[in-house]
């Protein structure tokens, strides 16, 4: 059939299994939006208030569904507004397809109205990007983009389509959905060596990352941990790789990881790192991280092997496939002495940094929401509330924690929560804060328009808490520009946007508000008052080791 470029874009998206896109119209995507008009019913478009949130929504959608998230934006400012969202998806390996319009090909390079070189701008934060100047190349390029975004380590791909290419006519033939390939590249001798190390280890420790979630290898991870009798710690991105209440699970490692988890990781003789890149937030001082132990590194991205932490043996490839292969090869192992040590330390509450039980504080707030709405997908913004959520929330299924790990973008939450709610077709809790929420709270309008089942918990400590914490610890308590003193009336704000809201200054008020949110149809905001000096603990200072861990603040 003969179609114009814009129609070809939509046809190809449908062919690739896409029924949902996020975006914002504009001058250079008039053609594309005209095609959306024609295809309504087959593909649903969600308009946000700002392109950044559309990109975060596509990212959130991808994280909860495992399918690529698609976002449209116009040229110039539309495209540049996507950049934070694209970078965020890149750092957290999220398959996002961004389609931007651009000025017509004969206007490119002339600093035309709303022209930017978005391919140049996004080059370092995409897996790949394309500018399509020939309508004949449009469908093949989009198919290729899907393949790239989903294959191996997923990531965002941007396709820039000039306005005249959207209008140009061309023959279109639908094709099969692109096949994503997840490779394995390792030699048998490395595999044998890994098996040998695991068999010989007396104190093995499994360190799971986001790769386990992306590879959907949670049951393999659990089986593997049972087989080799090892505890499991996780990076923040790996938190949903295993159920939080699994007896093998020790919680998050790293800067704000638990005392026992970091201690046991340090005392292990073998770390089996699965689908993780050893971010500096997770390892602390790299030179001392692997002292006295060996590291078996399993990851699909060869460039991660030895990038941050040297690997004794590496297995490059799809985590699920490799774990299956290891499970087949390794007999049941028991490490009774190690297991006893793990159990003892895990049960030891001495070093827990628990907060007071009966007051409204981050921990009681999170635990309350967790109890009332345990099956919600949880999204966060960035800062203290994010770390508290990572520390205290009990996750019960993979892909249920949507958070900005690598980039740490404040303002991620609203868009991501919206995308998560649309992708999961279920309830979502967003933990955010007065700092982060003010960045993109305009998206309350999007949540209301679509009547999304979203509970927004704004933890208001009247400060940029994480920066304040660092100022307190490392900059002599000189609180430069982090005390907000904003007069925002969150409940009135929620109502102004058309949603319900409640203020909670006590735990009782908070519990009531959460129950009300649960029974409410549509978005609901809870304004929770938190102490300004509440810290995220424990904390290993940047580039520190376990011995530097701060337990009291």
């Amino acid at each position, binding site marked *: 059939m003969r179609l114009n470029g814009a129609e070809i874009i939509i046809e190809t998206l449908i062919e690739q299994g896409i029924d949902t896109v996020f975006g914002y119209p504009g001058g250079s995507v008039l053609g594309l939006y005209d095609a959306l008009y024609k295809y309504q019913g087959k593909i649903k478009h969600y308009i946000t208030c700002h392109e950044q949130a559309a990109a975060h929504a596509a990212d959130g959608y991808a994280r909860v569904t495992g399918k690529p998230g698609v976002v449209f934006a116009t040229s110039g400012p539309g495209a540049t507004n996507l950049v934070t969202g694209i970078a965020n998806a890149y750092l957290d390996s999220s398959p996002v397809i961004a389609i931007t319009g651009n000025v017509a090909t004969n206007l490119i390079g002339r600093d035309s109205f709303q022209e930017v070189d978005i391919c140049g701008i996004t*080059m370092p934060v995409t897996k790949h990007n394309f500018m399509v100047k020939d309508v004949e190349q449009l469908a093949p390029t989009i198919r290729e983009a899907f393949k790239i975004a989903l294959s191996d380590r997923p990531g965002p791909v941007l396709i820039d389509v000039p306005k005249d290419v959207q209008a140009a006519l061309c023959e279109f033939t639908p094709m099969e*959905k692109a*096949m994503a390939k997840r490779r394995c590249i390792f030699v048998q001798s490395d595999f044998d060596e890994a098996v040998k190390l695991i068999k010989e280890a007396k104190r093995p420790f499994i360190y799971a990352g986001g790769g386990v979630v992306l590879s959907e290898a949670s049951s393999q991870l659990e089986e593997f941990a049972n087989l080799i009798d090892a505890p499991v710690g996780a990076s923040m991105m790996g938190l949903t790789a295993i159920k939080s209440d699994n007896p093998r699970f020790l919680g998050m490692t790293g800067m704000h990881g638990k005392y026992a988890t970091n201690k046991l990781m340090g005392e292990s003789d073998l770390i089996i790192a699965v689908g993780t890149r050893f971010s500096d937030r997770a390892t602390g001082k790299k030179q001392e991280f692997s002292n006295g132990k060996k590291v078996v590194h399993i990851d699909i991205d060869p460039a991660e092997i030895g990038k941050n932490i040297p690997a004794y043996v590496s297995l490059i490839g799809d985590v699920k496939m490799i774990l299956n292969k290891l499970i087949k090869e390794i007999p049941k192992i028991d490490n009774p002495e190690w297991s006893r040590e793990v159990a003892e330390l895990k049960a030891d509450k001495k070093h827990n940094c628990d907060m007071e039980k009966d007051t409204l504080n981050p921990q009681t707030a999170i635990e309350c929401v967790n109890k009332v709405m345990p099956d919600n997908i949880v999204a966060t913004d960035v800062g203290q509330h994010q770390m508290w959520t990572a520390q205290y929330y009990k996750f019960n299924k993979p892909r249920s924690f949507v958070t900005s790990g690598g980039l740490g973008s404040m303002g991620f939450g609203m868009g991501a929560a919206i995308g998560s709610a649309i992708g999961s077709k279920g309830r979502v809790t967003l933990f955010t804060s007065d700092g982060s929420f003010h960045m993109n709270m305009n998206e309350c309008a999007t949540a209301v328009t679509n009547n999304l089942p979203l509970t927004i918990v704004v933890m208001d400590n009247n400060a940029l808490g994480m920066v304040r914490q660092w100022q307190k610890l490392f900059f002599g308590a000189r609180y430069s520009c982090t005390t907000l003193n904003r007069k925002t009336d969150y409940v009135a704000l929620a109502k102004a946007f058309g949603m319900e809201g409640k203020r909670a200054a006590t735990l009782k008020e908070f519990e009531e508000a959460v129950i009300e949110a649960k029974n409410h149809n549509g978005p609901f905001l809870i304004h929770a008052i938190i102490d300004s000096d509440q810290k995220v603990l424990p904390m290993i200072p940047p580039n520190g080791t376990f011995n530097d861990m701060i337990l009291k603040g």
Partner: protein
Amino acid sequence: MKQEKYLFSLLVRNESGVLTRISGLFARRGYNIDSLSVGVTEDAAVSRMTITATCDEYMKEQILKQLSKLHDVIIVEAMDLEATVMRELLLIKVNVAQGGRSEILEAISIFRAKVVDLTPESLTVEITGERNKCDAFVEYLRPFGIAELCRTGITAIKRGAERLADGIGKNTYEHIIVSDEE
């Protein structure tokens, strides 16, 4: 760690922006390029790049891996300098108005360089060879007054019958999954 000179040979898709992608990757990851040369190959859809860089072993590994990840890079290899033919072409314009012409011509013959242009004031020389030889020639000419100097950057090819392209897809096997079938 010990700094060494490395030479990377790449086959890349002959697409617009590929040079930017590669040089951008070097820039943002903090790798220094000593020289870079690029041109089409026997296959018009493929370009060949030769990049030299001074770095340590860790960075060399990272360069290889990060380059391999680029969609436009078909293959990249750190060449074994002992088994590689390396050449660079230089064009050098020397001032000869104040004399020195005969000594320069003598050097040209010894270095197997070639005069490509001649005026009463200047002499333009072409020389090809390995970097050390070219450097030595440049140093010899310097006292006479180099007016202009251009170097192409090193280009390199393996000795023997083996080709760079022969390494494509080695040691890999592919496991295909359908993205949403799991």
